[in-house]
């Protein structure tokens, strides 16, 4: 059964009130008991006083004398009887004693009345003494009973106080237990539930729209969680998290960057990417003073291939050249399509000889691996005119380096194609 927090608080308050009510009631009850016991003790002392008075009267006065006044005796007796009637609700032991006192008292009165008769005056001295002693003895019995009664009353007071002390301690212990348990339990419920809600808010803040699952169920927190979960459900449908958004943007940017730097046909870097990389390598060369060589390659008689095998054939040839180049260059080298059937390879940490060697490898590899057009089952043998230029002091920027390589390539074209020409230097083929 699910209980609301307000119900729990209400129940707790009522229980505490009940416990304190019991405590106060028991205190009132105990006070009454002690009061009754004290009043009994008081009455016992009074009865004792009257019994003493009677005894004194019997001992001191000559009850057989003609002038003896029985009024005092009878008034004392009357008070004694009235007091005995007053003693309320007794314990069995007290009842036994009271019965005894009551009976003895009645007997004393009867005997006394007999002794007051005129005829008794004719009795022998021995009889008179005997009955006088009998009266005194019976009064002594009453007095002994009263002493016992008094001690029982004292015992009653002690028992009531002891019982009350035990009861108060017990109720206080139970109350403290309830209070501590209630405080502990509520703190646990509040702290855990609030932490769970707080944690859910924090997760929301970072874009994780999760449902709250409460460890402790209560109507109040359940209603909050219900609303929160409903809100989160809507938010999760309509809101994109910042993290997801950032990743999407990064992915898209990366794709766009790739698209903007890649030649769509050959999938190698385009002219824009070439200049970016070229400038980067140029600045690196300025820092490290390593050699930087650029190679410009142009496919010889590409137009004829286009004419003979169509644009598709031309495109395939360009892709084939890129494949051959990628195969022959190192990882640190950079291949880019410069335009049409022209390609540029940036060769960092490479001098002119290294460039020539790579150029030779490319030409040789292309010669050995001509393009085979599967559709027509024909072999397309093409050659490359290559211009190589190494960065020198005269080059102010990457553009000038490219231009010199381009000039060397033209030189190679001019010198009969399928050649390697080196800027400002010698021809190799």
């Amino acid at each position: 059964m699910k209980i609301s927090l307000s119900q729990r608080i209400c129940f707790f308050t009522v229980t505490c009130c009940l416990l304190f009510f019991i405590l106060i009631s028991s205190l009132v009850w105990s006070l009454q008991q002690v009061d009754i016991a004290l009043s009994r003790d008081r009455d016992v002392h009074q009865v004792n006083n009257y019994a003493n008075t009677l005894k004194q009267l019997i001992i001191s006065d000559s009850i057989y004398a003609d002038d003896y006044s029985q009024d005092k005796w009878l008034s004392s007796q009357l008070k004694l009887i009235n007091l005995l009637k007053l003693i309320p609700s007794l314990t069995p032991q007290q009842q036994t004693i009271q019965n005894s006192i009551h009976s003895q008292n009645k007997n004393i009165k009867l005997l006394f009345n007999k002794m007051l008769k005129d005829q008794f005056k004719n009795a022998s001295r021995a009889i008179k003494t005997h009955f006088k002693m009998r009266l005194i003895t019976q009064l002594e019995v009453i007095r002994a009973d009263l002493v016992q009664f008094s001690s029982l009353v004292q015992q009653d007071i002690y028992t009531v106080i002891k019982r009350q002390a035990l009861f108060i301690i017990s109720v206080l212990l139970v109350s403290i237990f309830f209070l501590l348990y209630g405080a502990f339990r509520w703190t646990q419920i509040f702290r855990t539930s609030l932490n769970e809600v707080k944690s859910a808010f924090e997760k929301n803040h970072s874009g994780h729209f999760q449902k709250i699952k409460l460890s402790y169920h209560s109507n109040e927190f359940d209603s909050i969680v219900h609303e929160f979960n409903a809100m989160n459900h809507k938010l999760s449908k309509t809101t994109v998290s910042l993290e997801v958004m950032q990743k999407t943007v990064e992915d898209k940017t990366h794709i766009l960057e790739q698209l903007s730097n890649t030649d769509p046909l050959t999938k190698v870097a385009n002219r824009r990417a070439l200049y970016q990389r070229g400038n980067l390598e140029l600045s690196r060369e300025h820092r490290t003073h390593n050699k930087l060589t650029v190679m410009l390659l142009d496919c010889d008689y590409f137009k004829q291939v286009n004419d003979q095998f169509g644009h598709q054939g031309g495109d395939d040839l360009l892709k084939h050249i890129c494949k051959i180049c990628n195969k022959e260059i190192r990882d640190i080298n950079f291949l880019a399509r410069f335009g049409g059937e022209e390609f540029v390879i940036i060769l960092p940490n490479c001098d002119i000889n290294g460039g020539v060697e790579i150029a030779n490898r490319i030409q040789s590899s292309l010669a050995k691996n001509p393009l085979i057009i599967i559709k027509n089952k024909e072999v397309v043998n093409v050659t490359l005119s290559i211009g190589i230029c190494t960065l020198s002091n005269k080059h102010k920027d990457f553009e000038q380096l490219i231009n010199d390589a381009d000039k060397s390539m033209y030189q190679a074209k001019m010198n009969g194609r399928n050649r390697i020409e080196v800027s400002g230097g010698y021809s190799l083929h």
Partner: protein
Amino acid sequence: MANEKAKIIIVSILIKLLTLELTTLTIKFTLSTFIILIIIVTTVLLYSNAQHIWPLEKYSVSIAVAQSPLSAPFYVAKSINAFDNTCVSVEYNDVIGGQSAFAKVMNAEADFGTSSDSIIAYESLANKPFVTHAMFVQSDNDVKIMTRTSVKIESVLDLKGKRIGVTKSTASDYFLSTLLAMDGLSVEDVELYHYKPDQLLKAFTDNEVDAIVPWEPHAFKAATLLNEQVTMLDTKNVNSLGFHLISQRSDNLLVVKAACVLQGLSSAINYIAQYPEKSKKIVRDELKLTSSFIDWVWPDYIFKLGLNQSLILNIKYQISSDMGNRNANDSIQ
């Protein structure tokens, strides 16, 4: 022994609980610690308040109980199992009259017995070693004087010269002499006729006497049978009869047993004070008596444990009245 064992068990439980509490404290589990603390406090409180429930060592005790409503506390004690919580396991030895009970005690056939003042007075003169532990009941109207209504005896003085039936050398005889002495008369002023207790009624109906001095239950029988033909003089508290718990001269163990018997009797007497009607029924059923008889005698009984001067006073007076020389064997009290 059993008490010691029970204490050892309790202490070991407390130690275990304490150990458990310390273990719990170390892991700082507040709630459990608190619950254990409450259990310990409750156990200690219960232990201190419930020591009386441990089983006690029981002594077997036999009591010679005179069959009379005056032995009511014994019958009630048996009925409410008042001796169960004491150190004695009691077995009753029902006898007819206090004299038989006394004889059983003196012959060591019973540990305790119930006897009246008269028997105690008589036996004390015989120098027999016995102990009176306590008086548990007193009747101030057991012996009664019943007169013929037609003779019109309205006071003790009217008894002068009348024929009176008594049981010789018994409480009946003693009662009559006391009653007459109160008004300045003596036994010489009346015509005494001696009968056995159960013959008094017949003597009265046969018109052999004008008055009889019977004790209970003969007085009740006379009043019931003769109804308005008899008149009773108010003689309450002229004579008192107490019933006592007696034993042979006691050693320490007997004193312990006597204390336990008295403890049971005390419970029974308290029960009588609390539930008089139920107590009457117990006595009625035990002795197969009519309720009218119990109602007749009950108001004259004072049930209470005690030892006071009245016994000494009675003995002294009986001795001074030469009652001690009389044979109390006939008394059924």
